């Protein structure tokens, strides 16, 4: 490459005593050439200055850009566009900030499902194979619900959904499990188009000062409000968020509120950024709930005191996991008398006037979940310096904890995973050799327990509630659909009785 500075060759003379620079080699022309070079240099400087101003404007614009859309409709359109493109990043960006951050563990969940072979190794949240959605000609109508809250109705357009079972990201473990039940998806690829105006779905969008975003929690809450025929709440005047000074304090106060059946306090302790909808819509049901609690207290006078709570936390930025190491509670409940219950991180001990019992983790059925963290963990988040409960993150954390305790072998051997909880019969149901019996006419499938070669149960497989299914064996070969329906009802009744027992 020729070492020419922007703006052309330079006309200055080399510095005396110094070796000529690459610039200087171009500076040996006549005076005319020097004037041309000078002009080129000026042009180069001018271009640079214009570029500097443009780049400065660009930088400032980008740094100060709002994350949301200009209108509620644009926010919903952005969401549909991202869904249609299977653009996970776009979907998350289209959601309200508080909601999107609560969904971040989804990626961890996908990692665990990949590790366990539930989904294929190449499973990508950004490109889920086998399913394709396309939205066309969408039209919207906005209904303002309150300041910064709007319901966007989809008044027209179509959604075309294509499903190709062969392309679904089913992992080897899930495929094996489905194979046990002879339930591998074998239906053909389908494409259907639906008119969205028929159902007129509605999505609520919020403007929290950073542009409009779609909100799934407000959408759910608004849908429930419309179903219940309740009036629109006064947005921003709902249950006031009241966090705690530390993660442990947030959980401690939540336990106290739960024991006191204080729904208002409990809601106040839930993260306002993650569950703003709950805070806003709670007044619609809170009065009734509090009246019901008062009535219950009048009818069933009880007293419960939590005398000890052993909590510890691990904080990572604005998220903290609070572990329950132990607790002690005592009180009086009609019918039970005085009671006390305690947990020391391993054993639950219950003592009452009528009975006493102790259950330890080691007493529970040992299964593939045996490695799961049995301690109760609540996820809390910091909003504006205060700590709140995060229900969504807590749920994700519990599911992730259970999944992390498993490996592929556990899932491929359901007998060891679920058998201890549901009895060996269920294990045989999962074992090779199980078969489905299809009732004629109605397509009902019922499992016929065929003993596995290595079944640990002597004699025939003992399917849970197997005695209930004997009624099918009594049916004559000529039995018709009505006979099967009657038999099914008998089985249902029998299973209900078993359940009650």
């Amino acid at each position: 490459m020729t070492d020419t500075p922007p703006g052309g060759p330079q006309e200055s003379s080399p510095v005396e005593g110094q070796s000529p620079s690459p610039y200087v080699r171009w500076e040996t022309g006549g005076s005319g050439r020097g004037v041309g070079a000078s002009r080129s240099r000026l042009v180069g400087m001018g271009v640079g200055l214009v570029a500097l101003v443009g780049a400065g404007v660009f930088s400032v614009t980008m740094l100060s850009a709002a994350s949301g859309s200009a209108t509620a409709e644009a926010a919903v359109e952005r969401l549909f566009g991202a869904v249609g493109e299977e653009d996970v990043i776009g979907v998350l960006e289209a959601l309200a900030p508080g909601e999107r951050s609560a969904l971040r563990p989804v990626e961890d969940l996908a990692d665990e499902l990949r590790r366990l072979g539930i989904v294929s190794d190449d499973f990508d949240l950004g490109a889920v194979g086998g399913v394709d959605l396309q939205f066309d000609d969408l039209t919207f109508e906005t209904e303002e619900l309150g300041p910064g809250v709007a319901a966007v109705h989809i008044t027209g357009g179509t959604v075309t959904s294509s499903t190709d079972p062969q392309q679904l990201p089913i992992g080897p473990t899930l495929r094996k499990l489905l194979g046990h039940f002879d339930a591998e998806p074998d239906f053909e690829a389908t494409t259907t188009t639906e008119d969205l105006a028929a159902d007129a779905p509605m999505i609520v969008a919020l403007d929290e000062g950073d542009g409009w975003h779609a909100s799934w929690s407000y959408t759910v809450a608004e849908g429930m409000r419309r179903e219940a025929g309740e009036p629109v709440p006064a947005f921003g005047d709902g249950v006031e968020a009241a966090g705690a000074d530390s993660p442990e304090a947030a959980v401690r106060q939540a336990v106290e509120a739960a024991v006191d059946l204080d729904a208002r306090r409990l809601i106040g302790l839930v993260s306002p950024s993650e569950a703003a909808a709950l805070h806003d819509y709670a007044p619609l049901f809170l009065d009734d709930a509090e009246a019901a609690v008062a009535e219950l207290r009048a009818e069933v006078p009880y007293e419960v005191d939590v005398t000890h709570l052993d909590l510890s936390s691990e904080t990572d930025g604005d998220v903290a996991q609070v572990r329950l190491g132990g607790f002690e509670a005592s009180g009086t409940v009609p019918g039970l008398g005085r009671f006390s219950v305690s947990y020391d991180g391993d054993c639950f001990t219950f003592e009452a006037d009528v009975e006493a019992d102790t259950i330890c983790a080691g007493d529970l059925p040992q299964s593939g979940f045996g490695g799961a963290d049995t301690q109760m963990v609540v996820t809390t988040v910091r909003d504006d310096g205060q700590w709140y409960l995060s229900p969504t993150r807590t749920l994700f954390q519990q599911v992730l904890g259970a999944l992390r305790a498993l490996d592929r072998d556990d899932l491929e051997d359901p007998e060891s995973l679920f058998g201890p909880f549901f009895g060996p019969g269920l294990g045989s149901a999962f074992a090779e050799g199980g078969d489905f019996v299809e009732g004629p006419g109605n397509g009902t499938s019922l499992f016929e327990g065929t003993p596995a070669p290595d079944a640990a149960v002597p004699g025939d497989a003992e399917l849970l509630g197997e005695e209930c299914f004997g009624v099918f064996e009594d049916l004559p070969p000529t039995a018709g659909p009505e006979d099967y329906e009657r038999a099914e009802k008998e089985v249902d009744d029998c299973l209900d009785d078993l359940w009650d027992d």
Partner: protein
Amino acid sequence: MVAVAGALGVLVASFLPWGRSGGASRTSYELVAAAGRLEVVSGAVAVGVRGWYLVPFLVACTWLAAARRRLLVTATLSALVGSAAVALAVAVKASPVGAETGTSVALVAGATALIGAARSAWEHRRQS
């Protein structure tokens, strides 16, 4: 000049598609914005990543510095732009986001800018 050419290459690369999520492609600036909004980066790293928005400004400064024959300034700016481009491109390639053409172009251009920066610095040293 190699340094300016590298810096300009980074500028061009920054507007090319860098990452794919589903059927959507994003430029480097859109990816940086998404990373900030989704809190993929936080703290000092987040501030550093947001500094990527200054790339066009820094490239313009590099151009002006070179036009005014400020070798040391040119070297510093092009080194800054080049190292930022290489670091961001490597980060995107290592992330779950499907890396696209822009990252490869940025790697080459960033490396060119770094080489150019070294050459300008050497030249400055020779002259002084």
